[in-house]
């Protein structure tokens, strides 16, 4: 059993709940059990809502799935759109897409990586990094960043906008488009669209380099904090292409241990059911995946930018690869596991995404019109992609009447479930144990979650400003005090539950 997952007894302990976790899309809740000396006995990240896509997609025609399932998320819908499309390519027997279709899908996907990583880093995480984890809460948001660091805020907003434009030109809309269809794509890229996207790239690459330097400066300014915050070591999983390079659209999966040594050097994602298992725990709607042969206690792993930048042998774009080497140097020959390094890896991926987009826009294939292929119809298809937050698995079975009969989705958030729980336990032990709990300290917990995922909506769904409420409850369940943040960001403290 994992440390701090289950308290030996709940007798005499009080419960602190961060419900919901803020600046995170979707409904998540963190509970802490503390004794009278504020010693932490239990910490859990709960996913408290249920979506049900795997059930209500049953009976629908297979060609509808890539468009429907992307509604799982408003931050990275393209990832679901493309993972489902890849699975449906298998269903329609499209073993090899046309060069134009494959490259347009890659263009769409790397646009998604740029926009989603930009919103994650600049809009949601940078307020903590720039202002301080326990800074004035009313300023600790993107508006506060815009007031104090207008250039950084502007660059983040325009980086995201550029990614959205790439998606717009390849999918028809900035959010929830229809570009990928089983066997290819439905839309060619025009010369005018290509030229418009090329025009702004040099400036955007400079800004992305600035983002990487910013994260490097954060680390250099306070290496002890950045290297230890939420630190834990674990296995890692990511996608690699044939030569071992990072590939976010297609490749095999590689799993390494905490030392970076391969557990599975590569396996075809079609076989994921042979390699991975999922465990259910009574206190969360989100499952806990693990490597079958290692079991749930030793076989859990992390995915996402930090994991995949270390499972790959190299990044196949020069600026991002140089930045990766700089980041890995802080590990002194060992893999980097510090939680906040996820953000460093994330901004390196923005740079990589823009370099890939640049290469694709210079490739004449993206202007082709040969968009669709079909082959021998199949009954089962798996599609896997590296979504901004990590490996995303879509698996479907389709009957002879073309209706979906089975759907299994393992989203990035789910892969990182144990990792996020372990990270917040690490933070709680480092920063909250035996201390008087304040909003700033609780935000440390949220910072650990945001490093992995600003978006729990693959398993949950909610939009808008999220108020934060922290209740101090005694062992009998009676609320002793209440700390509440309203939608305007103001804090209200009361001794008694109102």
């Amino acid at each position, binding site marked *: 059993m994992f440390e701090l997952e289950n308290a030996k007894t709940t007798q005499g302990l009080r419960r602190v709940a961060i419900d919901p976790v803020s600046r995170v899309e979707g409904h998540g809740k963190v509970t802490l059990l503390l004794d009278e000396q504020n010693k932490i006995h239990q910490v859990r990240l709960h996913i408290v809502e249920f979506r049900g896509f795997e059930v209500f997609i049953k009976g629908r025609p297979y060609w509808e799935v890539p468009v429907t399932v992307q*509604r799982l998320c408003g931050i990275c819908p393209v990832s679901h759109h493309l993972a489902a499309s890849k699975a449906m390519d298998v269903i329609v027997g499209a073993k090899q897409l046309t060069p134009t279709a494959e490259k347009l899908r890659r263009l769409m996907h790397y646009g998604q990586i740029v926009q989603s990583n930009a919103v994650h880093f600049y809009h949601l995480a940078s307020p903590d990094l720039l202002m301080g984890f326990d800074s004035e809460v009313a300023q600790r948001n993107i508006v506060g960043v815009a007031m104090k660091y207008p250039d950084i805020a502007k660059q983040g907003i325009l980086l995201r906008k550029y990614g959205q434009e790439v998606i717009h030109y390849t999918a028809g809309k900035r959010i929830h488009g229809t*570009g990928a269809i089983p066997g290819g794509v439905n839309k060619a890229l025009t010369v005018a669209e290509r030229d418009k996207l090329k025009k702004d790239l040099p400036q955007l690459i400079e800004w992305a380099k600035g983002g990487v330097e910013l994260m490097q400066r954060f680390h250099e300014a306070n290496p002890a904090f950045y290297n230890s915050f939420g630190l834990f070591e674990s296995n890692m999983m990511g996608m690699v292409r044939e030569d071992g390079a990072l590939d976010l659209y297609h490749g095999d999966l590689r799993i390494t241990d905490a030392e970076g040594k391969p557990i599975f050097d590569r396996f075809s994602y079609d076989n994921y059911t042979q390699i991975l298992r999922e465990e259910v725990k009574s206190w969360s709607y989100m499952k806990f995946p693990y490597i079958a042969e290692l079991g749930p206690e030793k076989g859990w792993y992390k995915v996402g930018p930090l994991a995949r930048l270390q499972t790959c042998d190299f990044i196949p774009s020069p600026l991002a690869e140089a930045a990766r080497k700089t980041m890995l140097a802080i590990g002194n020959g060992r893999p980097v596991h510090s939680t906040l390094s996820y953000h460093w890896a994330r901004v390196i991926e923005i740079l990589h995404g823009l370099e890939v987009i640049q290469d694709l826009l210079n490739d004449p294939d993206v202007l082709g019109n040969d968009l669709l292929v079909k082959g021998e119809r199949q009954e089962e298809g798996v599609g896997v992609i590296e979504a901004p937050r990590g490996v995303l698995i879509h698996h479907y079975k389709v009957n002879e009447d073309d209706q979906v009969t089975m759907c299994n989705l393992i989203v990035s958030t789910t892969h990182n479930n144990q990792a996020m729980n372990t990270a917040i336990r690490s933070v709680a032990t480092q920063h909250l144990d035996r201390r008087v709990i304040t909003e700033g300290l609780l935000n440390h917990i949220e910072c650990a979650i945001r490093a992995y995922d600003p978006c729990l909506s693959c398993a949950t769904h909610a939009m808008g400003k999220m108020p934060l409420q922290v209740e101090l409850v005694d062992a009998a369940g009676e609320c002793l005090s209440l700390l509440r943040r309203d939608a305007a960001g103001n804090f209200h403290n009361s001794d008694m539950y109102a």
Partner: protein
Amino acid sequence: MNTENTFIIDGSPIPFEPGQTVLEAALKADVFIPHLCYFPGLRPNGNCKLCTISINGKHSSACTTLARPGSEIENNTPALNDKRRLMLQMLFVEGNHFCPGCEKSGNCQLQALAYELEMMTPHFNHFFPNRKVDASHPEAFLDMNRCITCGLCVQASRDVDKKNIFILSGRGMASHVVINSPSGNLGDSDFSMSDKAASVCPVGAILPKHRGYSVPIGKRLYDGVPISSQTEFLKTRKA
């Protein structure tokens, strides 16, 4: 202008030929009257009531009302459009019209009219029906949760295709389209995607298989030009 064969819509004279309905004459003159269950060449049946107009102060369906000389007709007025919007809202909540995932989106007459008439919310509680989804035919997919019982497929199958595959069953709120085959499934009928009935559905209830979303966003029927400016298309469709 010869007033013998003209009538007035919203103050403008509209010429007509004897035997034409108000809707036919209006479309010919490029005047848009919202409608769902009218299709050129099929017998108008006044099912959907979207084309309700006011003739000399009295409400009537433009698709079934013969044009008469000198009629004073109100069409594009706030009061009539309010009623049309209400009828659209009722159609939306009676079925499962989930535009975000529906492949008819952008080509859907119901959706286009909702945009045209500025329907911002469904207003009423959704029925969330659980009707038949029939995937038994190799070429066509039926989702009766999207059917608005306009009757166009029934007419086209009966009067043009001479197959009588689609039949209206039940009465009032319970009326619904059924398939005239031994099992009640489309796969057991002699339906073909080349039938007229396959192409008259104004919503996403009857769809060809394997082609969903093949037209990119921006190039779909109602993406660029609102339905009210597409009278040329609406009047030249052929049954």
